[in-house]
């Protein structure tokens, strides 16, 4: 089924658009700070690109009340190892599994 296996066309956006750049920044900030990406931070980035951000903010509150989003971010315990991975420093400690 070659037609089904082929990669779907991506949304017509430029990879260098300012919103994409901002999203990358947020991702790196989140991973540097906690090791995992908090969805609320990504939603906040989305609001920055919208004409009427207040409406989407209400939607986010509804998602929070519906237990769809976590209020507080989760954090990796060994955050130093994640930061080392990001900066490309060799990890001298043995992986604990």
């Amino acid at each position, binding site marked *: 089924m070659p037609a089904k296996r*082929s990669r779907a066309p991506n949304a017509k956006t430029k990879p260098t658009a300012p919103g994409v750049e901002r999203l990358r920044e947020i991702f790196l900030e989140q991973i540097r700070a906690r090791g995992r990406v908090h969805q609320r931070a990504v939603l906040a980035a989305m609001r920055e690109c919208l004409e009427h951000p207040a409406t989407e903010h209400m939607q986010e509150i509804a998602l929070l009340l519906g237990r769809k989003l976590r209020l507080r971010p989760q954090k990796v315990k060994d955050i130093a190892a994640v930061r080392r991975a990001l900066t*490309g420093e060799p990890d001298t400690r043995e992986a604990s599994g």
Partner: protein
Amino acid sequence: MSATAEVFSYYPGCLAAQSAREYDASIRRLAGLVDASLEDINDWNCCGAGVVQQADEAAGRALARRNLDRAGGDRVVVSGCPICVARLREAASDEAACHVLDLLARPDLRERIAAKIGATGEKRPVGSLKVACFYGCQFPQAAGEQTGAGEDASTPLEALMTLAGASVVTWRGSRRCCGGYRLFSEPEVGFETLRKIFRDFTKSGADAIVTACPHCHFNLDAFQYTVGRRQKRALEVPVLHFTEVLALAMNLEAAEKWLDRHVTSPFGLLDRLYVEEEKRKRAEGRARKTKPKKEQQ
């Protein structure tokens, strides 16, 4: 869980730990039922989700590598997110990670799923459910090509849905991009992509969209309100995780709890399916009663 359970390392991913907790719970429950033991990767981190890869490829690979290093020994890493699976594979090899769909579509596990569904004795409410399988754009990289589950030219997702008793509808939007993370960086473009998906879904005549990606699920489930509002019409499209459909077919009580976490409630659809199934059964029963009388005459 039997003593002979096959052990896999489990990588939940950021979304399964947040907005798709019901997906995470259903994966764990189903894996347990088919004797596949999932052991969490201790202290896992974000896989980079492609966004980091675009900014710094080496950093993206290192993030994925850290997760693989923490997975025990030579175990295959199983994840429910095709984006995470693709990233983990890029950092190691295609054999290092697999999507939970590929795992459950394996012939031996499919047999066990079929036995569990068969043990319930009936296929309600899934028996009369028409599903539109949504693959998104990450799937060709992450799942569906290794298992050989689709001998009859069906994908693993279609094979599992058929196994659950649902009818699979062919539709145009199945391979469209859900907007992905671009929905967050260029929301106007993302909303337009979603609008096209819902337009295709309306034309398909299906009852619900079924996904195997927590990211696609979140975008389709949580943002359909926004898409509908912009079009000045109410959109109420139930978006289900494939694991939930299997759980419904197995009559698992926990399925109700998982479905309750969806933004767009699927309970209206399920109630309708239960009523339709009851009517069908009653009609079948009546036909069975009248048949012998006619034969006697």
